[in-house]
């Protein structure tokens, strides 16, 4: 697992996050929550404002990497495509980090 590969201080503080990094942060929160995350959890976990969270969740849903369920209490989970994307991203991140490049 990548988590065992890196210490918490491995990533230098970034001035801003790329769109990809925000997507990944959101999906990581969902994975951390046993693939069933409520918007509030994602909001705090991915450190986003409400408006940006709604925007990114909609984008991720349209990309087919997350699934929205529930009517009043919405719950988000990763689709199979989302899980595969995260696996690929981890490999790429691990590869880039090995050379000292950050993505």
């Amino acid at each position, binding site marked *: 697992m990548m988590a065992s590969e890196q210490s918490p201080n491995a990533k230098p503080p970034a001035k801003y996050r790329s769109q990809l990094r925000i997507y990944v942060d959101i999906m990581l929160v969902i994975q951390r929550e046993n693939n069933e995350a409520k918007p509030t959890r994602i909001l705090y976990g991915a450190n986003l404002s409400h408006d940006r969270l709604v925007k990114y969740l909609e984008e991720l849903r349209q990309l087919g990497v997350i699934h929205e369920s529930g009517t009043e209490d919405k719950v988000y989970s990763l689709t199979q495509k989302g899980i595969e994307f995260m696996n690929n991203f981890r490999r*790429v991140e*691990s590869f880039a980090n*090995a*050379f*000292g490049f950050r993505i």
Partner: protein
Amino acid sequence: MEFIAFAIALAVAYQALKGYRLSKERTLLYLNLSFMLLGAGLLIDSLANLVVLLTRFHRAFLFLSPLGYTMNFVAQLLAYALLVFAYVEQTRNVDIQIAMAVAPVLFFEHNAVTELILIFLLVYISAQTAINYSMNKSRNALLVFGAFASLAVSHLFFLIFTLVPVFFAFAHIAQLFGFLLLLAMLFRVNQTS
């Protein structure tokens, strides 16, 4: 040996390309181009030597050996310069145009001075990968550092080989060892899930 190194260089280039497609991170594109150049240089050099060997050192084909070596040398020079540029750009955000203006300086004929430039580039890359390892302490970073350090040592041996012929074999072994370390890193990365 160079065919194995060529295959590993291509595998690293492919992984970097996959990473670039996913992340659109420019440094991964540089990494891809760098290892493509390394692979191309190794392939040309090994094919040239193979032709010379298959024609049983026929006089008409003898020119291929130094030609292949020189092309490999230039490819490596460009590849390592590109990697240095990637590290510099990441740390200092240097303008591409400045780097491109410096690029013609790299076109020398093969001699001890250019070999020293190659060693200098590899020492710089090794230092960067050592810093990376000291920061994140991952085995993959250690493997990459070990790989570039081995490649730097191999070029040092290529330099010494002009004085002590036995170092030619040591240089090739060090080069292969460096690429095998990269292969080990690739296996570890692809086990990540």
